[in-house]
């Protein structure tokens, strides 16, 4: 427990992007979790006149069906966030299984798995999703999470395989092999723990992608329009021509929430990258390094002159 805490403090110290990103996500998640407590109205019920602008009664206005936008956004956020988490979890799990499997087993298994991965990788994902969703017909949130998870793993699998290959050649793995440890134990005890930070980065990256892809699919009308989520809110706003009658709040509320979560995940993603590869750092800690380089340069020039 203390180990996790100290790791977390190390991650967040001086890491402004990470702090802001996590705070944004935490804020939205907390609001959505508290939906039943703080929601002003029932999200599924007609509670006002259609297309009401924001007012004291409906702080974020109403939809064409007279439903409260704020209530829908809070409750719908739960669906959107759960789909993103589930899709990211499934993707990371498949990427780990395929990547570690291919990297550790090697030979035929590696070749076969990588052939499938490479083909999946060059396939344009969204058209694939559209076709799948179209043939399955108005898919619910659960199915969306599954198809996002099943189609987004190839890039991660390649990264995991590369990392596994380099881990395999490390001394501690060789030592475990010589000691006669079983393959499963080596994978679980020696290899997987070293992939955790990579997997965390992948999870955040996929969640970011899944939030957008899910909203996009639902916006196009491929989701189940009777389930309230941020994507279907956009869909209803579009199909009831909310913009053209001036009901901008119907787009603004779900759009802003998606953007906040997306932005937060993006910031978190950048900071995880920078922690796992210090070369990529951009933060203020670079200042000292630059000052050192500058004085060195100046000294060198003086010496030459």
């Amino acid at each position, binding site marked *: 427990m203390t180990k996790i805490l100290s790791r977390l403090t190390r991650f967040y110290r001086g890491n402004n992007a990470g702090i802001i990103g996590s705070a944004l996500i935490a804020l939205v998640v907390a609001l959505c979790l508290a939906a039943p407590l703080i929601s002003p109205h029932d999200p599924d019920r007609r509670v006002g006149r259609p297309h009401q602008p924001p007012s004291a009664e409906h702080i974020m206005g109403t939809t064409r069906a007279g439903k409260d936008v704020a209530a829908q956004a809070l409750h719908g956020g739960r669906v959107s966030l759960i789909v993103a988490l589930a899709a990211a979890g499934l993707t990371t799990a498949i990427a780990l299984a395929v990547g570690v499997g291919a990297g550790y087993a090697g030979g035929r298994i590696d070749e076969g798995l990588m052939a499938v991965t490479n083909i999946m*990788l060059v396939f*344009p994902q969204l*058209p694939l999703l559209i076709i799948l969703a179209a*043939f399955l017909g108005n898919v619910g949130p659960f199915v969306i999470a599954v198809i996002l998870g099943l189609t987004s793993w190839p890039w991660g699998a390649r990264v995991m395989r590369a990392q596994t290959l380099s881990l395999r050649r490390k001394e501690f793995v060789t030592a475990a092999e010589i000691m006669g440890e079983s393959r499963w134990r080596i994978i679980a005890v020696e290899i997987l723990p070293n992939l955790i930070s990579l997997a965390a980065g992948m999870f955040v990256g996929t969640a970011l992608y899944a939030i957008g892809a899910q909203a996009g699919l639902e916006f196009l*009308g491929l989701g189940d329009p009777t389930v309230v989520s941020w994507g279907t809110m956009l869909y209803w706003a579009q199909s009831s021509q909310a913009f053209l009658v001036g009901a901008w709040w119907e787009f603004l509320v779900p759009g802003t929430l998606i953007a906040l979560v997306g*932005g937060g995940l993006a910031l978190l993603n950048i900071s995880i990258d920078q922690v796992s590869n210090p070369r990529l750092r951009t933060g203020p800690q670079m200042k000292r390094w*630059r000052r050192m380089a500058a004085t060195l340069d100046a000294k060198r020039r003086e010496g030459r002159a």
Partner: protein
Amino acid sequence: MAFVIRRLAFYLVAVFVAITFNFLIPRLMPGDPVDAMFAAAGGRMPPETIAAYREMLGFVDAPLWQQYLQYLRSVLMLDLGPSIMMFPTPVTTVLAGTLPWTVLLAGAATVLAIGIGCGFGLYAAYHRGGRVDRFAPVIWQFAASMPQAVTALAMFFIFALTLGWFPLGFGFNPNLRPGWSLDFVASVVMHAVLPLLTLLISMIATWVFTMRNAMVNVLGEDYIAMARAKGLPTNRIMRRYAARNAILPVVTAASMALGFAVAGQVFVETVFNYPGIGQLIVRAVAARDYPLMQACFLLIVLGVLAANFIADMLYVWLDPRLRS
């Protein structure tokens, strides 16, 4: 040369997988397109019509492998059947009318995004830890993290609907006659600005990061230290030594990004009612026009695969190690 042949074989396999997928999907799913049409017609459809539709769409009572061979042949002959939505126009004719718009938009967006993004990335890596390096990549990434549908809607609302700077939709002013007249070209450009901006916002971040990170990694190499030790001017080191090698990952990323550009196209074209393939596939899905839908999918996949192949060949040309 072996590399070229291996890649070519790989893409041929990928094309086959795409065609097979297209063949299998409607046959594996519960119900078939004709059932959907039957339901859409409220069950009022004479059996002969149903049988005729089945025949037309290739759902004959033959073993699967025979159907598959027949499907392969019709794809090779570019005979993809008539569109249901625009019956009896052949699917290929419908596609031909929309293809130029998508190619125009995706092409312009990809080229501009690579140019602008790599410029930013190069500058950020050159002035590492400076103001641009600290803020530009994060701001671009933040902008790109918004789903394209949301960005497109925001653009539409602010610049087209509220400010009225740009037209509300479509590829050109329908009152003008298409041709190479100045008015028409100006109209096409004005209509393309907002869709293009939306695509750029979501695409540039990738290039900033790819270029910056590649540059930063290359700058840590020994031969850069060597060049510095020789006292070569920084500018020359950056351009002749570092950027040359940093461009390789950019080419790989270019092939990946094309699939992404196509995806963005779907949302942008839907929001701005742009007459391209992205919008067509969404309309085909809504109208349950299965032949058109599958043809759109096939065309998009083939386009992305072809572009990937070109990027691979570019890589061979840039990286001498692969040519031996």
